[in-house]
């Protein structure tokens, strides 16, 4: 059995601290920055799991695109101003109980099945070349569907967020 490396604990603490700060901080811009820290921690966890391609895709897509998109949305909706009546909704206690329950169930399932989970120790010999071959070989249809989905989502987001023209009155 391989011992868990201390780097894992550092990265896990970084990711979870970023996630907690994203949920708990008051200013929306601070929340977006904390989310970026959580995304970066996850990318480093991917790299530590020998999934280089997924790690760099995570950095490109999440830190490069999604975080910028969130900051743009915050600034466009004037979200940097603090609301007067608190940042948590009226039913925050119910949400907290549900989240704690979900975590309890998941942690129970993981800890119950810890003996039967697979424990492959060796580093998988997978290169970006293999991933590229798989993407245009076995997974070419999902790749095309994702391309279609991204096009549709881009057009849809532009249409939804576009200024509405004044309709001519009948």
């Amino acid at each position, binding site marked *: 059995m391989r011992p868990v490396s201390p780097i894992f604990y550092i990265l*896990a603490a970084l990711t979870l601290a970023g996630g907690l700060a994203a949920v708990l901080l008051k200013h929306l811009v601070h929340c977006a920055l904390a989310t970026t820290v959580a995304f970066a921690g996850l990318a480093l966890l991917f790299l530590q799991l020998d999934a280089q391609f997924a790690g760099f895709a995570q950095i490109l897509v999440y830190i490069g695109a999604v975080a910028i998109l969130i900051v743009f*949305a915050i600034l466009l909706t004037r979200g940097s101003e603090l*609301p007067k009546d608190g940042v948590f909704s009226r039913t925050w206690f119910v949400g907290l109980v549900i989240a704690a329950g979900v975590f309890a169930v998941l942690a129970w399932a*993981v800890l119950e099945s810890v003996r039967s989970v697979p424990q492959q120790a060796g580093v998988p010999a997978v290169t970006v070349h293999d991933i590229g071959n798989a993407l245009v070989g076995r997974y070419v249809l999902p790749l095309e569907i994702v391309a279609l989905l991204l096009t549709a989502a881009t057009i849809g987001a532009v249409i939804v967020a576009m200024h509405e023209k004044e309709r001519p009155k009948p």
Partner: protein
Amino acid sequence: MPLAGYLLVAALLFAIGLAGALTRRNAILVLIGIELMLNAANLNLIAFWRFGPHPEALTGMMFAIFSIAVAAAEAAVGLGLVIAIHRHTNTTDLDKMNRMKG
């Protein structure tokens, strides 16, 4: 047990994202919570790929890559919706978005 550690971290991150999505007032924060949940699922997929019996089949890796792409599309559409709602009602407070309430 390395895999159980990753799974526990992913479960905790999922719970944090769920708590954020359920307790915050601001719609953008709810989207951030959903992104955190999607990322936790991705961490599960990558961890199972790494410690599973056939990592050279690339199944979990491909699932995670496609999941990242779908999450990017979801973020674009979600933030576009938030901006559109802000233009109509001048708020992003979810407690004030009750126009469809009977």
